[in-house]
């Protein structure tokens, strides 16, 4: 238990994150290769939708990740507000762009799938509409984080916002679903499409894991940058820069 809290300080987390990144990146590449193999080679051509349906192997994992990352951010938000740990807020900042990206990819691939299948780039189906609102929630957090000058205040305000958003997500999803059924909108549901073959589910799960590994790798890399920028006035960062300079000097033969 004590070991975990040792890594709660940015100074100790920085090198740890650096060591972890290659592993997660490697896992992401392997899983993505496996997932894409399933998606394009193993999974059979769909009887009704042809080849286009293969986009769900990106669409569904992206949508899952968009949702999942927001919940992870909310978890960090609880840590930030409850324990006042700067690293939690930094992780939130690091995760947000990735979460927003996956949500945007989900929307875009949904449109790519919808056009040939249902004839329109955008149909107001419940899940896609909820995903759109999720994107707005991400954008709101990023905007708030950028708009507040004081760093700690921005951290805590962002944490509170993400928590409020997380609590509201089930309410929003439920209300959009109600709205959709009442208005007889189209239903771009993956499961209501031709019954999901086991192989398709497996493929999506593998891709989801790949996205997850990718998210971790990218967020760790991003948080390292955030740590350096926030801690730029501390001793350990100065030492790090000095050590780096010495290394470079050694490589180039000492010209300075």
């Amino acid at each position, binding site marked *: 238990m004590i070991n975990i809290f040792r890594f709660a300080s940015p100074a100790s987390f920085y090198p740890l994150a650096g060591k972890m990144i290659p592993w997660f990146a490697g896992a992401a590449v392997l899983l993505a290769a496996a997932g894409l193999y399933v998606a394009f080679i193993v999974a059979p051509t769909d009887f009704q939708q042809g080849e286009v349906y293969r986009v769900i192997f990106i669409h569904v994992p992206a949508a899952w990740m968009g949702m999942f990352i927001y919940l992870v951010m909310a978890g960090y938000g609880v840590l930030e507000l409850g324990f006042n740990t700067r690293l939690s807020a930094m992780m939130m900042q690091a995760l947000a762009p990735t979460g927003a990206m996956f949500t945007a990819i989900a929307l875009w691939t949904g449109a790519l799938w919808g056009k040939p299948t249902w004839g329109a780039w955008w149909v107001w189906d419940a899940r896609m509409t909820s995903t759109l609102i999720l994107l707005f929630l991400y954008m709101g957090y990023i905007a*708030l984080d950028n*708009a*507040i000058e004081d760093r700690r205040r921005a951290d805590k305000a962002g944490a509170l916002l993400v928590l*409020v958003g997380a609590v*509201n997500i089930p309410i929003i999803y439920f209300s959009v679903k109600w709205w959709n059924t009442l208005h007889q909108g189209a239903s771009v549901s993956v499961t209501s499409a031709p019954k999901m073959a086991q192989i398709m589910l497996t493929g999506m799960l593998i891709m989801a894991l790949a996205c997850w590994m990718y998210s971790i790798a990218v967020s760790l890399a991003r948080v390292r940058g955030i740590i350096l920028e926030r801690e730029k006035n501390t001793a350990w960062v100065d030492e790090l820069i000095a050590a780096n300079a010495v290394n470079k000097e050694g490589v180039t033969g000492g010209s300075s």
Partner: protein
Amino acid sequence: MNQQALTLPAHAAADPGVLPGYYAILRRELLLAMRSRGEAVQPAVFFVIVASLFPLGVGADTQLLTRIAPGVVWVCGLLAALLSLSRLFNSDYLDGTLEQLLLSPYALPALVAAKICAHWLTTGLPLSLIAPLLGLQFGLDGGELWLMVITLLLGTPLLSMIGAIAAALTLGARGSSVLIALLVLPLYVPVLIFGAGAVEASLSGVDYSGHLALLGAGTLLGIVFVPFVAAAALRISLD
């Protein structure tokens, strides 16, 4: 060194309750709203003007207008409420009175609840009462007009409450008026869906009690929880 003991005021350790502070704030807010009537009336004027733009935009086909009326009136009400949100804490923040609220011995959530209540009384309530006029313009009548008022009365407190959290978080931030809109509109979606949905259901002859029940439940939950969240947001912003 002086050996005198500090004499603490009698009420220092005792719990001062909540109501005196609540009423002091409520009175002050209403007094201030009356003193700047021009500013207080702006959301209502905006409401009427923007709603009147829609027929100009989509044409005067009464059937179409009646069908879009619930949504249009609700969206315009939403936007009008949004406009008034920056007023909620901003002026107190700028002249230093907001700090005094935090330093008051009364529980901050109670004081914030008073501010939100006053905000609703000066924004949501007038909007709800004006809405029938707009409904008439759009061809709603009788039962639907009443229902429109009821949904707004039930839903606008939620708009004020959710808005208060966003307003508290964005105090003194860059571009706060647009930022509030970005933060708040996704959270307004359920209120819009059930509020406008109730009137639409009535227009289609479908039961709307579920919509009203959900709006009411939401407002009650908001009354219980939002003051604490908004108070936390204020403490964060004034740190």
